């Protein structure tokens, strides 16, 4: 690495920063004048403030979504790699809803079909969330007391969350190595294994789950610990005077008062786990199709098999599943109500 490269890089990014800042200011100024002078709306200020973000999201999320929607009706793939134009009507690439029907009727990947992937994703998500919440809750309850070494325990247990995820995953992947990995060597010490963590479908899926539980517990623990700390101790004293057992206190005081923290954390955790592409991608390294969940199958379909039309339709199906779940859950739990006031 030489000095030239460094200055070029800093120059490029610095220039981008300045250009973007200038564009933002210009856009806001232009909008302001336009809205105040010409259209005379009283919403001039908020519209102008939202405009840069809206524009950015439109270009980088809105446009790609429309592109995907368009492509999902065509037979675009590596063999048919042309600009499809509007729905591929002009150049004989139009398929109508065929891609959407095929998501459910034909194998999404080489062997694996939609329903198997869906089932695996549900299993993956529920096992992970179950362990994240239960272990996180258990550890939070243990740490929520006067004790020696509390800070040290907390710092150590939080480590899996703190280490950059790609690094943690590359390390785990290496440790799952059949001969040289620590997992089999440790299991060997207590007379178990060795297990084919990377080559057998069942063990590979288990390896993914173990890794993701290890990664996800600290987040839940810290969130729940924060929630516990906001519950006034007087409540427990009052309960004790009234003769409540500690189990009753947990069910009647702790759980209900934790709900405002727990519900959004669970929604967020579910969405993250469902959409988690890092863990399956790095632990499996795109080798076993059987270990795929919906989002990794999507990645494989688009980037390994290059079936862009199929992948686009599949992506909308996956997105729809998550959307339905989230809307349903948010409605039922009534969280986020305050956000719109």
């Amino acid at each position, binding site marked *: 690495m030489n000095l030239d490269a460094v200055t070029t890089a800093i120059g490029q*990014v610095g220039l981008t920063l300045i250009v973007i800042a200038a564009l933002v200011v210009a856009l806001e100024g232009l909008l302001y004048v336009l809205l105040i002078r010409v259209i005379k709306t009283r919403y001039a200020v908020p519209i102008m403030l939202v405009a840069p973000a809206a524009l950015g999201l439109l270009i*980088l999320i809105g446009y790609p979504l429309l592109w995907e929607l368009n492509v999902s009706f065509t037979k675009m793939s590596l063999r048919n790699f042309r600009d499809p134009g509007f729905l591929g009507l002009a150049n004989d690439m139009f398929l109508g809803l065929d891609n959407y029907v095929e998501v459910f009727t034909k194998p999404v990947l080489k062997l694996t079909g939609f329903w198997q992937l869906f089932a695996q994703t549900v299993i993956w998500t529920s096992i992970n969330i179950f362990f994240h919440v239960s272990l996180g809750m258990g550890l939070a309850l243990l740490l929520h007391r006067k004790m020696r070494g509390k800070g040290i325990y907390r710092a150590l247990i939080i480590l899996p969350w703190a280490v950059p995820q790609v690094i943690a995953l*590359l390390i785990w992947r290496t*440790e799952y190595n059949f001969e040289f990995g620590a997992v089999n060597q440790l299991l060997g010490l207590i007379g178990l294994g060795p297990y084919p963590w990377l080559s057998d479908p069942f063990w590979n899926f288990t390896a993914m789950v173990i890794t993701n539980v290890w990664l996800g517990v600290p987040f839940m623990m810290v969130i729940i610990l924060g929630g516990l700390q906001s519950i006034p101790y007087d409540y427990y004293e009052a309960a004790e005077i009234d003769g409540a057992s500690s189990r009753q206190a947990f069910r009647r005081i702790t759980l209900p008062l934790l709900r405002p923290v727990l519900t959004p954390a669970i929604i967020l955790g579910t969405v993250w786990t469902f959409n988690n592409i890092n863990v399956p991608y790095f632990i499996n390294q795109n080798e076993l199709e059987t270990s795929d969940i919906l989002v990794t199958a*999507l990645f494989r379909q688009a980037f390994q098999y290059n079936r862009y039309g199929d992948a686009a339709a599949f992506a909308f199906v996956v997105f729809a599943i998550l959307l339905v779940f989230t809307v349903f859950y948010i409605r039922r739990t009534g969280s986020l109500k305050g*956000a719109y006031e």
Partner: protein
Amino acid sequence: MSGSTVVPAPIPAAARTGKAASAGGREDKPLKRLAIHLILIVTAIIAAFPILRVFSVALRPGNRLLDSTFTLIPEGATLESFQHVIGDTELPRWLFNSMVVTTGTSTIGVIIAATSAYAFSRYKFPGRGVGLTTLLATQLIPAAMLLVPIYILAVQLKLANTYIGLVIALSVTSVPFSIWILKGYYDTVPIELEEAARIDGCSQLEAFYRILLPLSTPALAIVFLFNFLAAWNDFFLARILISKEELLTWPLGLQRFQQQFQTQWNDLAASSILISIPVVLLFLYSSKWLVSGVTAGGVKG
């Protein structure tokens, strides 16, 4: 948020609200205390084990890479691997690239989010509810869904294989989350402060820049950190947008070490440590604030 018990006003304070409660009252019986310590020690070992092992592997001399012992300081411990990855590999270059991209990304992300969040927090305007919902919905989009069109867009705009393309793509992806967090924070700052400033002759925007922004420094710092960590750890956007050797970010580079287990296990370990130490320290230092940021953004309106 239903019931304001959880995330009270300013975020740093939220982390310390447990004055009365955090200690949890009376002492436990000795036997119970012992059991609790035992469980926590075992958990801490499980949590830290892979990381401690990386330290030990990084210290191994070249001829003992596949040693199957579990001592923390291996026989013949040496810092060769560290010297090797700093001196002979492209690691410094990858770290530099990541640093440039990440700093640019977080700066743009914070600027864009800070102003929009103000509009969402202080104004009622047509499309506000829809806008907030859309921001949430973007969080549900599977990452792989947008990669193909973003790549094609980048190629068309001649931004593939440039720092600029990666910076723009990354900064926009964190914007929705940042807006929610900042809006949640602004909502907790009494509007009376800005009203008072306006009576004294400030314009609406001056009130924002002079009153609200300085008061929101902790939240802005959190959002910056969020953007920073997200960009620092990004793998997939970089993978599709960057293929030139001299532009690789560290996750792309590191994957190359990992693909050759036998020869480079200690290189992987040593680089992992060098990459992680600053981030882990930053993270441990700020984790309290990070978390109240998550709940403030997700729970609080």
